[in-house]
């Protein structure tokens, strides 16, 4: 009996939800097992990195890589699995667009570390120790995988063959992806698979009428009509700027789409698409006779209902968005107020010969080359 093609599932900076989604294939897992040899999956199996290193290049037929790239180790594993795999799939929104881990790109890495390890009121860290790639101890240097300057999505580090969106991908779509790969009838390289090409509105069976929103409302404020379009009810439903294919389970559960399938075909920036869409449907009322300043003020008052548009619109795609995160502008104001005591990288918080502990990665915020998955 010929050997079955090898399947690997790896997680980088992720939550494990993508593995759960695979397990949610239920009895279809037996069909997956019949066709493929699931030989590497740190969440489910005990295969080690050295076992992968021992394989010849290209030995793995398919790797489903979930998770964003947050540390050096994530990049190292991405490169290793790229080398060993014939097909590398960016599986789930983290690998495709950065997802929740990439929300860290709204701040710099040293601000992030300072908040996490030094400034949060619940911390007990009197030495103000901050993890770093290399730390000098009396016994010698010790090493941890250092944080990257910025959270990346998979295609920013290695060549990706296919993208599967979703947080996590819907199990029926995972099955479609596996069937597609098993069939050997593969779409062009670089395609986004296991999804549709239109927007979630196409999947959503709510009644859509004329969209004129007189106020934005948030989920906690009211119980939405279960049959009418959520956007028309004032909820910032992202379905209008999100790729179809999930079957709209969120709007079926009376919750607005939060955008996890990323931008639809033809859209490079999900957040900008949301801005464009909302700009068309906001209704600020009759402005005849108002001054230009008063009209702008009315728009601002309308928009004040929601505190964090960028976080909302780039929840799943910040790493793959046009700007990729906060931009290193010469005089930009940080999102958060300045940290008391300044940035954690200077002055060094040395103590007892542990200089290394105070080193934090530079923030390497810079222009993105416009490399976008879609």
């Amino acid at each position, binding site marked *: 009996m010929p050997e079955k093609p090898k399947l690997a599932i790896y997680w980088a900076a992720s939550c494990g939800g993508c593995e759960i989604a695979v397990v949610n294939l239920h009895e279809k897992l037996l069909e997956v097992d019949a066709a493929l040899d699931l030989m590497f999956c740190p969440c489910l199996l005990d295969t080690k990195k050295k076992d992968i290193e021992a394989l010849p290049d290209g030995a793995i037929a398919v790797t489903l890589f979930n998770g964003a790239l947050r540390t050096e180790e994530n990049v190292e594993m991405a490169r290793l699995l790229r080398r060993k795999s014939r097909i590398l799939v960016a599986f789930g929104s983290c690998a495709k667009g950065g997802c929740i881990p990439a929300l860290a790109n709204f701040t710099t890495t040293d601000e992030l570390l300072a908040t996490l390890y030094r400034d949060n009121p619940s911390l007990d860290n009197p030495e103000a120790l901050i993890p770093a790639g290399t730390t000098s101890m009396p016994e010698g240097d010790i090493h941890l995988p250092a944080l990257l300057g910025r959270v990346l999505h998979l295609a920013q580090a290695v060549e990706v063959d296919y993208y599967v969106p979703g947080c996590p991908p819907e199990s029926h779509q995972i099955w479609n992806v596996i069937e597609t790969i098993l069939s050997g009838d593969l779409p062009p390289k670089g395609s986004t698979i296991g999804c549709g090409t239109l927007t979630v509105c196409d999947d959503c069976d709510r009644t859509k009428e004329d969209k004129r929103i007189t106020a934005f409302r948030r989920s906690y404020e009211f119980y939405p009509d279960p049959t009418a379009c959520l956007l028309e009810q004032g909820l910032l439903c992202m379905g209008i700027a999100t790729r179809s294919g999930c079957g709209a389970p969120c709007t079926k559960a009376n919750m607005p789409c939060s955008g996890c399938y990323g931008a639809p075909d033809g859209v490079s920036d999900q957040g900008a698409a949301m801005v464009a869409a909302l700009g068309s449907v906001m209704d600020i009322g009759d402005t005849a006779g108002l001054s230009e300043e008063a009209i702008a003020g009315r728009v601002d008052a309308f928009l004040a209902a929601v505190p964090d548009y960028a976080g909302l619109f780039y929840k799943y795609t910040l790493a793959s968005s046009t700007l990729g995160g906060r931009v290193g502008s010469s005089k930009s104001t940080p999102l958060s107020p300045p940290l008391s005591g300044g940035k954690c990288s200077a002055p060094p918080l040395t103590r007892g010969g542990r200089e290394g502990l105070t080193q934090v990665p530079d923030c*390497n915020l810079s222009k993105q080359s416009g490399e976008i998955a879609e």
Partner: protein
Amino acid sequence: MTESNGFEPKIIGFFCNWCSYAGADKAGGMQQAYPPNVQVIRVMCSGRVDPQFILSALVKGADGVIVLACHPGDCHYKEGNCRALQRHRLLLLMLEQLGIEKERCRLDYVSAGEGEKFNRVIHEMVAAVRTLGPLMPLPEHDSHTIRSDAPMSSVAAP
């Protein structure tokens, strides 16, 4: 960076065909001098300016973007300028979170007869961006995409 360092802002201008573009013509016809830093893209309506265009301009080297529209009530297509305004105010909130100053993205109204206002708006925009300096001061960081052959030291901080 300031004027003395020789920084010349690069600004992309999206001008509405019916009012602002004609207003720019008017300023030219009046032989009014204004800074040459704004590279003009004529659009049929300010409502056509997708926020993706603005983000793309900023990421591809523009230090600022200016959208000029018809005055409220004067839109050739009734409400395109109103949509442009609503998008612009929303985009400003997002740009602030992304570290881009609101002065780098301006929307204003210039009618076909307002050559002088056009001149003033362009002067103000160029001066504001000149004061802010280049959007991306570090050209060597032009791409943070890691290539597989790049040494690890280039992707991680020390």
